[in-house]
């Protein structure tokens, strides 16, 4: 988990997996969050500088005491304050910190970022009212957009500088699937988990997917994790998603109305849509998407390669703001306030109760029960390239990509793991050391190094 690392905390390991909640540990931080929630501009205040100072100090500490055990022993014996003072004497920490914090000024300060009003966009949206963009010296308008195709076209047309996109979309755009091939890149994943399969109330006794033959199910877009996860889920239960059920692309806002009107039997949709169906009493939550794949990516923050090369500093600042916001959103204690911040008509435009249920993980399941799952939706910006590889296998599996594809090349071109890791390091966050990891989907493990074997292991797939 990406967080702040305090190298002078003896109880903390200085390794990359070490995680402390930097959130409200200091009065500064707390103040900062409160100010942000009151929608007051958050200045790069003391807290910020302290953090950079800490980054530099951390690096120095690491250089001086490569061993964690030795460092901890040293800190225990002399105390953190003394250690800091001691270090400062032979290393100009102040100067180094200043040099570090000084990124180039953004080429373009007034930016437009598009989003689709779903909770997946939480970091992009909340970064505006909570001042994460302003903190990076950016003046960002977050613009609500009608649908995935529109947001794609508007971003391609440079109406938006960057956008909220479904995680597979930048890959599809870069490969020229459903549009002209234009190189796009993903510096950050918006959210992990946070989706669900919702069924109409009349199906409350048909919980076994084997009974779903002939159902009409909706997904938000062809190039979406929703599509791949639903297909995966159905296929694992022996249904061929292309022949046994009808899959329809329906814009998220229309899903609940279609469910009410009995045009569809259910959907795998982003939240707040699932919870909204429950809230309005037209559907129930069959499963959360995390039950299919815990930690799956959903939406991404994407920009064209052109924007990245013409305005590298603006792009870096945006990435910092998103990473910052994502890290803020990942903390459970901030979720309630975030729900309030993004609920108004200017942002998601949904009842606060619904957003709260999604973000806090205490929710009505639609069948009369209240469930709690703190990880119902989570936020982690790191763009694992293995995610991209998995998506590519599914694109091939369902016939969206025909012929051979260089998984690694595409993943590395689109998912900017290395750059994001650098930005995170600069910000004093701890990125993962690798950009590939294996994970398991419905109990079946995925090795990003062997995508073709993985693909070959599926019985149900589109015959090409």
């Amino acid at each position, binding site marked *: 988990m990406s967080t702040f690392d305090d190298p002078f905390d003896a109880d903390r390991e200085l390794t990359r997996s070490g995680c402390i909640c930097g959130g409200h540990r200091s009065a500064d931080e707390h103040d900062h969050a409160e100010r942000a929630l009151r929608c007051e501009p958050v200045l790069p205040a003391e807290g910020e500088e302290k953090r950079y100072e800490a980054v530099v100090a951390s690096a120095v500490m690491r250089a001086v005491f490569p061993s964690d055990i030795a460092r901890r022993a040293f800190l225990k014996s002399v105390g953190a304050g003394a250690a800091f003072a001691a270090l400062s004497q032979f290393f100009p920490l102040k100067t180094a910190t200043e040099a570090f914090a000084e990124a180039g000024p953004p080429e373009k300060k007034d930016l437009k970022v598009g989003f689709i009003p779903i909770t997946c966009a939480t970091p992009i949206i909340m970064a505006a009212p909570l001042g994460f963009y302003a903190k990076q010296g950016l003046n960002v308008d977050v613009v609500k957009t*009608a649908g995935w195709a529109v947001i794609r076209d508007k971003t391609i047309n440079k109406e938006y500088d960057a956008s909220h996109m479904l995680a597979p979309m930048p890959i599809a755009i870069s490969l020229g699937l459903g549009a002209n091939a234009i190189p796009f890149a993903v510096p950050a994943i918006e959210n992990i988990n946070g989706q669900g399969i919702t069924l109409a109330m009349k199906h409350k006794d048909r919980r076994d997917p084997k009974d779903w033959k002939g159902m009409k199910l909706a997904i938000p877009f062809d190039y979406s994790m929703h599509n791949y996860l639903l297909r995966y889920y159905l296929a694992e239960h022996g249904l061929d998603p292309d022949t046994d059920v009808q899959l329809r692309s329906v814009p998220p806002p*229309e899903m609940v109305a279609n469910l009410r009107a009995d045009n569809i039997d259910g959907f795998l949709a982003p939240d707040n849509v699932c919870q909204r169906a429950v*809230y309005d009493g037209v559907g129930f939550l069959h499963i959360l998407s995390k039950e299919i794949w815990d930690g799956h990516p959903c939406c991404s923050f994407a920009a064209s390669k052109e924007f990245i090369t013409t305005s590298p500093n603006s792009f870096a600042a945006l990435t910092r703001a998103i990473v910052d916001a994502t890290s803020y959103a990942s903390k459970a204690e901030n979720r309630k306030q975030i729900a309030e911040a993004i609920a108004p008509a*200017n*942002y998601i*435009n949904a*009842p606060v109760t619904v957003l709260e249920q999604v973000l806090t993980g205490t929710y*009505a399941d639609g069948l009369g029960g209240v469930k709690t799952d703190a990880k119902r939706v989570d936020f982690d910006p790191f763009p694992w390239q293995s995610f991209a590889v998995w998506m590519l296998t599914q694109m091939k599996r369902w016939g969206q990509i025909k012929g051979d594809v260089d998984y690694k090349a595409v993943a590395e071109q689109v998912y900017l793991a290395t750059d994001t890791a650098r930005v995170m390091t600069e910000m004093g966050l701890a990125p993962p050391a690798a950009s590939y990891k294996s994970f398991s989907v419905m109990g079946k493990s995925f090795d990003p190094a062997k995508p073709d074997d993985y693909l070959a292991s599926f019985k149900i797939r589109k015959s090409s």
Partner: protein
Amino acid sequence: MSLRLRAAIVSIALLAAFLGIWHLATRSTGATANMSPEYARLMGLTATQGKSAMPGPADVGAKLWEHLKRPFYDNGPNDKGLGIQLAYSIARVGTGYLIAVIVAIPLGFLIGMSPLISRAIDPFIQVLKPISPLAWMPLALYTIKDSSISAIFVIFICSVWPMLLNTAFGVASVRKEWINVARTLEVGTLRRAFTVILPAAAPTILTGMRISIGIAWLVIVAAEMLVGGTGIGYFVWNEWNNLSITNVIIAILLIGIVGMLLDQILARVTRMVTFPE
């Protein structure tokens, strides 16, 4: 009792009946299934109170009053008052429509006055005319690469045809004798166009313009729902997004009223240029 008065009474009675039926049809049915209070707290009124998903007239009235009290608020790029949204839509319609007028009327004159051009251009018009304006949207977005200009382009393309055809028809069917009057008076082509053909064809042209403004207003709502950003169409979409049928109904009402006003303005202008013979 005058006919007008009687008609007004019937109108009001119809409205009252409509509102009454609406109210009855959307009444809450009272608390439905027994739910744990903890669960009920997380649910919407539709689920807990058996409230109809369709708002009643009172809900709409209250919400409308709320909107009317502050029509011009601005809460950021995605949430603006109804007055501002309508102004955006009207400005878009106005721009696209004005460009259409500037293009259609001179071109219509040319077609109406020259049988050669009329025949040469006719096949193009016949093919282009029946295309749904929204079908142009993807093409416009792709080529123009700007959604608000694309919306204006769609307005332009949908309002140009009725004006063009009516202008051409009006110009072509100007009475020969009026033209002959101008000819015997040795009036030059340009002056003839302005002093004889334009006033003679004006009622027909205005009829085309009136048809166009109606279509333009129909199309802007759909176009704005598609491209988003601002405008009354975006408002409808945004509230639909929130399943706020109340706001959608209010928007429908306002769209109707503005559409009627636009039509009335052109009807009035048409009356001004119409001459009895």
